[in-house]
C-alpha cells in the first residue's frame, strides 16, 4: 500500500513515521512537502508529530492553512484514510477533520513516557488488527494532549464508537491516575464519524521495533495496510 507522510516545517516525527513504514514494515512510503498540493497517489496520508511552524500559536493552527492541507481535506472528503499522530492529531482538530480540541496538559508540563491504551473499537480501518479491549503500550510525548470537547459531542463520540483509544492503567482500567494529560473521558484517540480519519496523541511509529520500546504500534499500521487491501 502507498503511504504519504507530510513534512510541515517543524515536523519532527515525519522521518520516524517514514522509517517505521518503509524500513521496518516494508511499506511503500514517501514524504510529502507542505508547499505541494499533490499527495503523490498515497492511499493513506500520515500527518506526523512535531511542532509545525513552531506551534507558537495554537498547536496545528498554522499548519492547517498549508497548501497540502487543501488536498488532505479533499482526500478525506472522498473517503481517503488519514492518520494524525500527536501534532498531526492537533492539526486535524484545527482543520475540523476531527471533533474536539487538544489543550495544555493538566500538569502544564511536557510529558514523555510509555502509557497503556485500551482499544475501544476494533472494528475500524485503524484498529482492526487489534482485539476489542486489548491493551497497547505506546509512548506519548507532548505538552498539549489534553482532549476536550463539548459534553454532547463526547456523548455522540461514545455512542458512535468514535473513541478508538483510551488511557488505562496496567490492569486496563481508565483511572484518573492513568490519564497522563487530563483528557476528558481519558480519550487518547478519536475517529471521524465516517471512520476514515483518525487522530491519536500516542506515537505508534515509535513502537514498531522490539529493541526500541516494543511492537504494539504495528497494530495500527497493520490495520490500515489490511484495510486498504
Amino acid at each position, binding site marked *: 500500500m502507498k503511504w504519504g507522510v507530510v513534512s510541515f*516545517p*517543524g515536523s519532527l516525527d515525519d522521518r520516524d513515521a517514514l522509517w517505521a513504514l518503509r524500513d521496518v514494515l516494508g511499506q511503500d512510503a514517501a514524504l510529502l512537502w507542505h508547499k505541494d498540493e499533490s499527495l503523490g497517489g498515497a492511499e493513506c496520508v500520515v500527518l506526523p508529530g512535531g511542532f509545525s511552524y513552531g506551534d507558537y500559536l495554537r498547536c496545528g493552527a498554522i499548519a492547517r492553512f498549508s497548501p497540502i492541507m487543501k488536498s488532505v481535506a479533499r482526500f478525506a472528503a472522498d473517503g481517503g484514510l488519514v492518520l494524525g499522530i500527536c501534532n498531526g492529531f492537533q492539526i486535524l482538530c484545527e482543520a475540523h477533520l476531527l471533533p474536539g480540541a487538544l489543550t495544555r496538559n493538566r*500538569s502544564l508540563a511536557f510529558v514523555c513516557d510509555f502509557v497503556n491504551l485500551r482499544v475501544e473499537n476494533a472494528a475500524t480501518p485503524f484498529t482492526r488488527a487489534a482485539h476489542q479491549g486489548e491493551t497497547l503500550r505506546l*509512548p506519548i510525548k507532548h505538552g498539549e494532549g489534553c482532549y476536550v470537547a463539548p459534553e454532547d459531542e463526547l456523548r455522540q463520540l461514545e455512542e458512535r464508537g468514535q473513541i478508538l483509544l483510551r488511557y488505562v492503567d496496567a490492569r486496563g482500567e481508565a483511572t484518573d491516575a492513568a490519564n497522563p494529560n487530563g483528557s476528558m473521558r481519558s480519550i487518547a484517540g478519536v475517529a471521524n464519524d465516517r471512520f476514515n480519519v483518525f487522530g491519536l496523541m500516542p506515537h505508534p511509529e515509535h513502537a514498531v521495533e522490539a529493541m526500541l520500546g516494543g511492537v504494539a504500534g504495528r497494530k495500527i499500521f497493520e490495520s490500515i495496510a489490511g484495510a486498504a487491501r
Partner: protein
Amino acid sequence: MSEAPAATPGEPKVDLAAARAHGLTEAEFAEIARILGRTPTFTELGVFSVMWSEHCSYKSSRKYLKTLPREGPNVVGGPGENAGAIDVGDGWVAVFKIESHNHPSYVEPYQGAATGVGGILRDIFTMGARPIASMDSLKFGAIDHPRTRYLVNGVVGGIGGYGNCVGVPTVAGEVMFDPGYNGNILVNAFALGLARREDLQSARAHGVGNPVLYVGSATGRDGIHGASLLASAEFDSESEAKRPTVQVGDPFTEKLLIEACLEAIKTGAIVAIQDMGAAGLTSSSSEMAGRGGLGVELDLDRVPLREPNLSPYEILLSESQERMLIVAEHGREAELAAVFEKWDLHAVVIGAITGDGRWRARFRGKVVADIPIAALSDDAPLYDRPTQPPKRSLHEARPHAVVVRPEPADALRALLSSPNVASRRMVFRQYDSLVLSNTVAGPGGDAAVLRIKGSRRGLALKVDSNPRACALDPYLGAITTVCEAARNVACTGARPAAITNCLNYGNPERPEIMWQFARGVAGLGDAARAFATPVISGNVSFYNETEGRAIPPTPTIAMVGVFADVSLNVKHYFSFPGDLILLVRTAPPSLAASEYADLFKISFGALGPIDLVRERRLLDGLVECAERRLIRSAHDVSEGGLAVALAEACFNPDQALGAEIEPVATDAAAEAWFGEGASTVIVSAPAENLKAIHDIFAPLEVRPIGRVSAAPRLKLGGWCDEDVAALRRLYEEALSGRLGRHD
C-alpha cells in the same frame, strides 16, 4: 594598508576607561594600540574585547589544555574545528561536544538553558553531522534555597522547550543540588551528531574571492557582550541588570536551519561553515578566515536586521541565535540560496574571503574596523597565571564528629529520597527522549544507548561530575569523574571511546582557583590516557563566582562509547530470578565525599588512591562480559553506595523482582553499604558463568553477594527487608515532592 577606519557618528570615545568597561586590562588595551599602530575605533574595541575575552580566547587555560591527550586511532579531523569527531565504524563518525551556559541560565533560566542547547546543536550540524542526541549536566543550589525551584523549573523548561521542538532527543544527563551552587548554577549542554565520514565539514576558509553567506535568523540587539561581560566575569548584585545580554532562542528556526544546512552541505558548494555563537559574526568570520591564513571583508549593510538602526558595533557583537556563516565556492551562491529559500530562511552574501590577512568591516561605505586577523585568534593574549594550593581544604569547615549515625534501614530510606539520589524522572519526563527512533535505553539508566540505523553498531553516552570529590582533591576528583563516566558507559557494554569536557571553575585570576584548574586538567589527562579515551573537544567556564565565593571545582565529563553490536547492550536492572549478584570492585569502599557523609553531616575524610590500571581492567572486563553474553545486568555503584545501587537494580520497569543479599563480614558496615569512592559495579549473571566472569576481571575482586529473587523484596544482610514497590515509590516521588511538581 588601506584607508584608516572611521569612527561611526555618535559612538562613545575610546580611552582606557572605555577599555576597562569592556573587561580589557590596561596592558591589553596598550597591546591593541600597538598591534593597530593607532587607537582602535569603538567598534574595534568591542571586537577585541569579545575575541580576547576568557570565553573566546581561553587565555588562562590554553597552557593546560595543550597537555590533554587529543589524538587516537579513532579520532577524525584536526584540532580547531567546531567539535571533535571519532570514527565509530561502518563509515560513520560521531561528532560531539559539551559547552557551558552557566551565567545566562542563572540570570534568565529558561532562555539561558534553551540557547545553551541551541548553541551546542549548531556546533554539531555545522560539522555536517545530523544531531541525534542531547544530554545536560545541571548543578543547582541547595534544594530548599529560595531560588532553586525557580531555577529548576526555568532550566528544565528551557531545555525541554528547545530540545523537544528542535527534534533532538535528550537521552541522559545529571542533576545535582548542593549549596556550593546557590549563587552560580551550572548548565552544561552536550550534543552528539552522526555523519558519513566523507560528509564532514570544515570551518577553515580557502579561496580568495569566495563569497561569505549569512544564513538563518536576522540580527537583533540580543546577546551583545554575552561572551565578554556575562561569561567572563564574576557575579555580583548587579548581575540581574545583565539580563538583556542573554539571547532568546527560536527552536523552530533552528530546526529549519538544521535541515537547510544538511541539505546545503549535500550540494558540495560549501567551503567552510561555522555557527555565529559567542561573539557572533565577529568570531565566525575571523575564525574561519584565520584558520585558512586568509582575510575577510564584510559589508555590514547587507546583514539582515531584525530592527533598523543597529550600529556596526551591535551588528558585529550581536549574539542573536540561529545564525550561521558560510564560505561558499565562488559562483555557486545561488545554488545554496535556493536551498535556504526552500526552508524560508535568509541567505545573503555579506562579504568575501581576501588574501591580505586582515579582518575588515564596512558600514555605509566606510571601513569601520580593520584588524590583522591573527590578532583576533592566534596572537590573542596568553596567560600563565600563578597557582597556589589552598591552605585549607574546601571541606574543612564541615562538622567532623558524628553525632548519631542513623540506623542503616533509615539511612537507606533517607538516601533513596535524597535530592541527589532520588529518581530524576520528574525532570527527564519533560524531555522527548525518543524522537529519531534510535533510543535503545533512555534516561534513568547508567548511560543512554543509541543504535545507528542501518548498522549493527551503537553508541552509549553519559555525562558525569563529582564536585564533592573535586573539592577534596581536584586531581583525584577529576580522575574519579572520568572513571565514573567511563564505568557508566562500560556497564551498558559499550567500549569507552572518547571524551568531551566542560571545565567549570571560579575566577582564574585567583591562584587557588588556578591551582584547582591545573590539578583538574592533570587528573583528566592522566585518566584519559589510561583509558585510551582522547579528549576530542571541550569548553572552559571560569568566573563561576558570586560575591567572591567560587563554586566547587566541577570538571564535567561526557564519555561516548561504541558498541560493535548494540543488540548486546546490558540493562542496569535485574531481570532473572535466581541469577547470582556479584560485586566487582577495584578497591574497598569509603565514605569520603559520599552522599551518606553529606546527608548525615559526617566528615568527608580523604580520597583514597586510584589505580588506573585496575580501573581500566574493570572497564575492559565489563565490555568483554557483555560481548560474550555472560552477564544480564550491570549497574555502577555511585551516590548512596551499594545499598542504593541494589535497590535501583530491583526497579525493573517490566516486572517486580527483588534481591537477597548476604550480610557483610565487616565492622565498617556503613562503609560497606553506603560507601562510594572506589569503583564498584554490581552485575547479575547465571551461576554457571561465575568462573568465566572471575577470569575476565582478575585480579579484581569478584564476590557473589546474593541472588535475584522472584519475591519483590529487598533483603540486605538481615537489616533490611523492604517491599521493592514501596522503596520505588519513595525513590520516584521524592524529587517532585521537594520541588512541588505533580502530574
